[in-house]
């Protein structure tokens, strides 16, 4: 009976999440940039899960003017919202040592700025509604700044901190805010990336995320063993972190 609005669910983990929620028969409204991809996904999900109510709303996250109308449109087709889940994200694989400012800025734009715009709208809605859940797919990458992709780390750190702030702001209003920190998930984002380990299939990661969100967990890694690594990462002292230099 949940009504879920998913941002950035035409691909990767978001798409897998859309499938999980559609399989449960819920209302699933997907915000995505590409109309073709969106239409294909919506009709695929409708066909496979006739019990669910699946809708798509075209929304380019880079178009700031479009975000509020898209959010209203999503609410209109969903009826109300029990879970607003931001799962849009980009990662640019550089050579690991050279910054490309334009790409860094875009990373920040999608992963953090657009997230803040939409999550902020959602937060205002949920505060008045007085119930429900907001969640963002952040990353273990947001725990520390690493040498390999500082912009990605920064964008996810911003998202995690923003969500933490919303959590504290909305707690008195009965709204749960969750920060999801996946490790490596097998999606297009990680495909072909060297040095992967503990890779979780997207479908399994989505199922775990949906279950833990359902239980109201506020901050969690996917899968659980990444929580161990996350703990170590967060607590390794700076001088050691610099010397070890994880990618």
């Amino acid at each position, binding site marked *: 009976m949940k009504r879920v609005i998913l941002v950035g669910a035409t691909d990767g983990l978001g798409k897998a999440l859309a499938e999980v929620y559609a399989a*449960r*028969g819920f209302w699933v409204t997907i915000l995505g940039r590409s109309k073709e991809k969106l239409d294909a996904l919506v009709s695929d999900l409708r066909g496979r899960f006739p019990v669910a109510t699946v809708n798509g709303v075209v929304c380019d996250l880079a178009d700031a003017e479009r975000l509020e109308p898209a959010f209203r449109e999503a*609410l209109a087709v969903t009826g109300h919202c029990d879970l607003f889940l931001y799962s849009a994200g980009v990662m640019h694989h550089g050579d690991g040592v050279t910054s490309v400012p334009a790409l860094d800025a875009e990373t920040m734009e999608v992963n953090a700025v657009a997230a803040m715009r939409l999550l902020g709208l959602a937060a205002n809605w949920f505060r*008045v509604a*007085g119930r429900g859940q907001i969640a963002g797919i952040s990353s273990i990458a947001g725990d520390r700044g690493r040498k390999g992709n500082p912009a990605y780390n920064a964008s996810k750190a911003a998202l995690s901190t923003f969500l933490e702030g919303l959590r504290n702001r909305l707690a008195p209003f*009965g709204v749960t805010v969750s920060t999801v920190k996946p490790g490596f998930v097998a999606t297009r984002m990680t495909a072909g990336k060297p040095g992967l380990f503990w890779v979780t299939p997207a479908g399994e990661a989505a199922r775990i995320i949906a279950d833990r969100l359902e239980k109201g967990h506020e901050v969690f890694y996917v899968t659980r063993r990444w929580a161990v690594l996350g703990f170590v990462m967060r607590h390794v002292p700076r001088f050691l972190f610099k010397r070890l230099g994880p990618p």
Partner: protein
Amino acid sequence: MSGLPPPERVEGFGLYNVSVSPVFRPGSLDALRVALATCAANGSKPVFRGAGRSYGDAATNPAGPVVEMTGLNAIAGFDEASGIVRAGAGLTLGELWKWSVPRGFWPPVVTGTMHVTLGGAVAMNVHGKNGWKNGTIGDHVESVSILRDGGRLEEIARGTPAFEDVVGNWRLSDPIVEVSLKLKKVATGYLDVEAFVAPNLAATLAEVDGAKEDWDYVVGWMDCWARGAGLGRSVLHVANEHPAKEGEPLGLSVEEQIADIRIGPMPAPVLLLGLRLAAAGPQMRFVNLGKYAASRLRGRTRTRQSLVAYSFLLDTLPGWNEVYRPGGFIQYQLFVPREAAESAFEKALGLQHELGVVSSLAVVKRHRADRFSRGYAADGFSLALDFPVTGRNASRLIALARALDALLFSCGGHAYRAKDCVGSVERLAAARGAA
């Protein structure tokens, strides 16, 4: 966005559907005109809300403003000879009966709660326990007054095509502001109520059908938990007007009407607490069993009850819907043609057990064919099922609702907008449009 009030939480009666909407509460026609102009200036289409007793999302607006009409509740006129009362669309049945009972009149059709407005009742074309004898409220409305865009008042009388378009039209983009309703004259404020049990579904439907000519009001409380030989067993309450007798009180005062409302020995807060503990759980099995068993033990009983006590059972325990927080509850009401009813209700009961979500409260009623083009009632029966919404049953409950949609589709039945919480009305319309 200029001139819109700050957004607030707006709920359906089931508390499952909510919206965050700016809410206008006009207290006069002029204030209503201003509200509509403000909405128009902001390019948003308002939803008109009465007392908010629709179970689902009918009186919420997911992406826009809500205009609450309860401020327009003046009684504008009454013709004692014909029984026709003219009142603001925001007047509730509760306000109406308190005014009309001392004059010897009672609304011809009332819902299970008195807290519905006349405007909402017309827009949903509501029915009551006397659905077979008296049809829907639209059958008793003489005319309505609508505030057309631009602020012009239009009087729409019964028998015109425009009237057909208004009754049961919850999509109406202009608000109903006044309603003329023909009340019925009552000799006393009392009913003679007979209570008895029917041991299974076939008996329930036969009793409800058999009682329809001899009794004005017919309603059955079905125990959905019973299976096997007891599947569909019900407690039936049938009632007729109590005739005036020499030396007996007439019951035509508000005090006498209210005095008859009894909730038993437990005080209301204790009952509410008990309900809160039981409502979402399998304990409701025992509540239903207890109700049936007690009525069976008592045998056929005949009592005198006030119109208010009999009609507005949902108001006996004010605030009962609150016990379903935080998830709320939904009601699914199936309207099924007579010949299909037994097999459809049997399937509806079977599906509940199959999917592991059993209705905590179920009501069966008999209806005559709705003569309005936007009608939902066929010559047949309805079964209204209440289900709490919890995190655990969510997936199974929506599967059940969709299975019931399919059941209605296949047997030529209808869903009802005032009760719809999960988009069944639209889904059925889309499926029928495509078929």
